[in-house]
């Protein structure tokens, strides 16, 4: 069942295009990646989903509720972690958490305590005294506190140390296992590769592809060949040349792949699964960079 559905979303800021044509659906229980360069339209899409801005065309819904008409109802079960966390600086964290809890009907005190312990949050400090990473942790706690069915995160690991990144994603995995749905906008391809099942790639306001990483990435191979007189068969796509080295991508595997490499009679070669990063570069036409 699609929890988040976006159809042909179009948003302009005056002459500047925010999104041109964005469509994708996020299924219940998945961690869905949303990837693209700066200015591609990721944040614009999220802002429309959360009712911060209004689209000029297309539609978007969360749990079947239109994001424009039902924004308050949607927020009751949606948690959001912004990229740049800005809260009331003069407040102590414990007061912020108390006020945040007051926005919802059924925040469990035990859950707040568990999250504070999990993310190692010092509740006695004023928000403005916190480091970027600690501010992010407070924002994550505010978003997760009401136990949301839908979690939208915009660059959630910016500023978080590796341990906390791991803690965050383990918590997200735990919640998705219980039925929550996560939309993760990120520049960090490694975390997207590790935690997301499917990914929407966006460029200049349009979706390039919605990819099931399990199918698209892991079954393609990157072959790096050094030297050798033979030419590559057409099933191997040349991505780039680095001196004597040539880098190919192919969907061949097993004996057929070995035969193709043998035909080139290379001095040396390596074979590895295509990484998310490699996939990204090629999808965006940057494979020869």
């Amino acid at each position, binding site marked *: 069942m699609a929890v988040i559905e976006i159809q042909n979303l179009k948003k302009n800021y005056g002459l500047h295009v925010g999104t041109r044509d964005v469509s994708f659906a996020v299924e219940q229980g998945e961690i869905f990646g949303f990837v693209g360069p700066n200015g591609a339209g990721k944040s614009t899409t999220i802002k429309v989903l*959360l009712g911060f801005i209004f689209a000029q065309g297309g539609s978007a819904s969360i749990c079947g509720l239109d994001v424009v008409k039902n924004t308050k109802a949607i927020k009751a079960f949606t948690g959001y972690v912004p990229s740049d966390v800005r*809260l009331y600086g003069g407040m102590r964290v414990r007061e912020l958490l108390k006020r945040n809890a007051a926005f919802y009907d059924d925040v469990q005190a035990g859950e707040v305590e568990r999250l504070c312990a999990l993310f190692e949050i010092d509740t006695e400090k004023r928000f403005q005294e916190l480091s970027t990473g600690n501010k992010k942790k407070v924002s994550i706690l505010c978003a997760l506190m009401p136990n949301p069915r839908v979690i939208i995160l915009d660059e959630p690991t910016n500023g978080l140390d590796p341990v906390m990144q791991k803690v965050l994603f383990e918590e997200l995995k735990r919640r998705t296992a219980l039925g929550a749905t996560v939309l993760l906008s990120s520049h960090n391809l490694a975390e997207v590769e590790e935690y997301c099942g499917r990914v929407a790639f966006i460029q200049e306001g349009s979706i390039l592809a919605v990819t099931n990483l399990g199918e698209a990435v892991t079954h393609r191979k990157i072959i790096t060949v050094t030297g050798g007189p033979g030419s590559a068969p057409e099933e191997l796509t040349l991505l780039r040349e680095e001196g004597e080295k040539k880098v190919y991508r192919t969907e061949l595997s097993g004996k057929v792949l070995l035969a193709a490499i043998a035909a080139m009679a290379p001095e040396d070669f390596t074979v590895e699964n295509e990484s998310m990063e490699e996939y990204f570069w090629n999808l965006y036409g940057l494979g020869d960079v």
Partner: protein
Amino acid sequence: MNIFLLELRNLRKSAIAGTLSISGVIVIMLAFFPSMQNESMQALAGAKMAGMDEALLKALGLSAMLDFSVITNFFGYAVQYIALAIMVLLVQKAVALFIKEETDGTIEYLCAKQVSRGDIVAQKLLAYFVVVVGTVALYAIVTVGGYLLVTDYSFGQAVREASIIFGGILYVALVFSAVGVLASTLIKSSRGVAGVTVGLVFGTFILGIMAVVVPKLDFLKWFSPLDWIKTEKLMNEGILPGEWVAGIAVIVCATAAAWLRYRRKDLLI
């Protein structure tokens, strides 16, 4: 009521600072009053004003109030400028009411919560209204106390006079505030707050002066709410029916326009 409480908290510090400073000015002005009853001081003030152009005296609200030994005349003159300062302090808060959260980025947090834009507008306006009424009421209380100390007014007389003066100030503050709130939904950054505030308060104040000084521009008094509450006029005629209609129309229209605008605007995040 969470946003209401948050907004009260946000307004708290500047409201306290503003209230203390204006209350201080009121106390200082009233402390001067006993010395104004001195005959030589009256003669000095009278001589100074006799040398001034009549139109200028009128513009300054002094035309028929030359006897500063009467507290209503003395404080009524000073309160014109106190009212100007009150308007600046309150309108500044009104203009910042919505745009500050956008410039500070806290609106991203607020709007992600279980609230509608209508909730945000209603609760912020309510918090602002409480601050306006609270601070103006406090000025009135300080004034009553001052009157009792420096005059032989009874408590009832002091309350009546302070109620008329600060009731008028409250009404005009609400008129200005409504326009300020509308401006808050229109401007692009909180950096524009000071400019809009000064333009709104001093701009209309200058229009009022022009209306008095240039007879042909008499109609401009309709655009100068501070002229509606010049003490002499307020004491004798009160706020005129046309001024009630114009002010209430501005309050209703500007607040409704701000509400409609904020519900459909793209937040600047």
